[in-house]
């Protein structure tokens, strides 16, 4: 994904966010260290949003923190899908089909009478969908934006077909009720699963060779290929992680509601994209962290729950999250650089543009 052909590359550090530039002005040993650390980290915007959301929620709707089980549950759902997206976006690809994967796997699970068989089938569905996405991206060579967009629509149709356009009730309702009760302290199985997925992905992306190669694939695909990294296999792995995690979210959703809704997932789609992107995962790939995604998911989860508790209707919540996603994507370092270059070139005028020989 090298879409930056029309952005001139300035010589400055690639991650010059406003804070780091200010700090750079005061040259001190400690401050320089801090600046370097800040320039390396990508979680700045996520932290800023989280701070604003926590302060606003503490003043306006403190119930969010006392009824933290609801809040954590929401964070876990957004965060799970966002974790899978992180793996894919790190490689410069995108998986828009996660929303429908969530719905389809939920319906698959609910239509199988045996609960454990259902869970297995749902997770297998997620892996299969991820593999199909990866097939189109890697083998056929379609852009992942368009391939997964087509899949998003096709799979939504599949969820309607499988469910006869009605919510499917889970046959084993007791399992669903058991799933909602706290297991470890105040933590429900849903939150525990999310924490497990978070730790697993964190270890995979920072400690395992294959996971670290995700960054290389997203940073410079040609260089990764030349270095002998099996790029195609890594992309397959990424999409299958994303499909699997979305299916897991579908399973959790179905268990908690004791029914599978074929229209589930569309609000989660927007919130989880916003969580990953505001958390600092660069859409062009190569930069970002699982921790950032967690921060983003916390911010959006708390925001959604506090809006719901304040009696704000879903439509207005969509506006909030849409605006956050739009701001997140235009304050992405690459976008800010492009905007800066645009402003600079319009001041310089045309005469400095040289015709190449």
């Amino acid at each position, binding site marked *: 994904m090298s879409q930056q052909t029309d952005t001139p590359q300035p010589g400055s550090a690639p991650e010059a966010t406003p804070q780091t530039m200010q700090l750079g002005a005061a040259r001190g040993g400690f401050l320089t260290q801090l600046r370097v650390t800040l320039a390396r980290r990508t979680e700045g915007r996520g932290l800023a949003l989280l701070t604003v959301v926590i302060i606003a929620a503490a003043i306006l709707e403190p119930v969010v923190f006392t009824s933290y089980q609801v809040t954590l549950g929401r964070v876990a759902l957004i965060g799970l899908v966002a974790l899978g997206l992180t793996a894919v976006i790190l490689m410069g690809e995108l998986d828009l089909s996660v929303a429908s994967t969530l719905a389809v796997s939920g319906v698959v699970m609910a239509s199988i009478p045996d609960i454990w068989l259902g869970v297995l089938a749902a997770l297998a569905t997620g892996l299969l969908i991820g593999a199909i996405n990866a097939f189109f991206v890697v083998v056929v060579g*379609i852009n992942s934006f368009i391939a997964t967009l087509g899949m998003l629509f096709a799979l939504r149709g599949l969820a309607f077909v499988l469910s006869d*356009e009605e919510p499917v009730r889970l046959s084993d309702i007791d399992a669903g009720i058991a799933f909602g009760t706290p297991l470890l302290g105040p933590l429900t199985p849903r939150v525990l699963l999310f924490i497990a997925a978070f730790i697993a992905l964190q270890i995979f992306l920072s400690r395992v060779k294959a996971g670290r190669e995700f960054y290389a694939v997203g940073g410079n695909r040609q260089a990764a290929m030349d270095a002998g990294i099996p790029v195609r296999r890594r992309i397959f792995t990424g999409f299958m992680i994303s499909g699997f995690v979305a299916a897991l979210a579908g399973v959790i959703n179905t268990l908690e509601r004791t029914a599978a809704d074929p229209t589930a997932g569309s609000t989660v789609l927007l919130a989880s994209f916003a969580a990953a992107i505001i958390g600092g995962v660069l859409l062009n790939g190569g930069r970002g962290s699982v921790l950032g995604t967690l921060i983003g998911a916390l911010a959006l989860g708390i925001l959604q729950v506090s809006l719901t508790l304040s009696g704000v209707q879903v439509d207005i919540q969509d506006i909030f999250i849409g605006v956050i996603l739009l701001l997140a994507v235009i304050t992405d370092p690459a976008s800010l650089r492009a905007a800066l270059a645009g402003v600079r070139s319009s001041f310089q005028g045309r005469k400095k543009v040289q015709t190449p020989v």
Partner: protein
Amino acid sequence: MATKESLTEAIAVAGSPASGGIEKKKFSPLLWIAENGVIVFTVALILFAVIFVNGFASLPNITDVFYRAAPIGIVAVGMTFVVISANYLDLSVVAQVATSAVIFIGISNLYGLLAGFLVATLVAMLYGIVNGVAVGFFKANAVIVTLSTTFIGLGILRWLSGGSIFFGPEDGPIRAFGQASLGPIPASALLLIVITIVLWFVLNRTTFGFAVRAYGSNKQATRLAGVNTTLVVIGAFVITSLAAMIGGFALAAFSNTAVSSMSDGYEFRALAAIIIGGTSVFGGKGSVLRTLLGVVFVSVLTNILVLSGIGFGFQQMAIGALIVVAVSVDALARRAAKK
């Protein structure tokens, strides 16, 4: 802006000898299918429908196909500009069509058709400029940008309209337009043809249209040739939004009602029509006339599925599969042509 001839030269200089400047013509059957296959497929599909599908070849059914094809077609020919400029697509047309329809019925009921038209135009310009600035100036990803504007737009629309259905008056001008027809061809289908001709002219006979195509095939060369590429992208999104606004009018006129959920799936149907029509998602190549054929294909296909009693879910699967297959053929053809 420079004249078209000087632009051609400048872009050719900037674009060569790197790839993409001037492509060698080499015959490849797959590429021919990707670009011109829509003619064969559409004719074949119509023949199939006439022979095998009960009730297709009747005048009321054909008129119905026209009625349903017109709004999607108007949206699709407009969105072709965004696709040609290599910005994937504008997902927010789904919000724009519904917003426009609600404005046309809702505002016209209160203040008259002219007021409705003005408000709808302003809103469409706003959509186009917000999408265009985010994509053209900030170089943000068009899919994510328009995904967020879709949710913002639909959220505002549902919030302000309360999700209620708006009915136009029985003797209003919108109803009159919806019922007007020339023989079996409804006025909205004629509107689609007029808009296609206008947009064909803009794309193929103006410097702006040339710049859109040039930008889609080689962004860097177009920028170096002195074209204000930010304005080109904004222009492509504004044209898409204006077309979506007119599409919303045609949709509102069809049923004389408007509701925020009435355009569900339009973004996917329009994209399917554009890609089937041979406009490449890789940008640079495409034509609004072929998109029109793509619209006929998608509409006839949907009609066949409906007549055969196939449900909503299967229709969505068919359209989604159509998008993926059409893009696959295009991608494979391009790879074969490069070798």
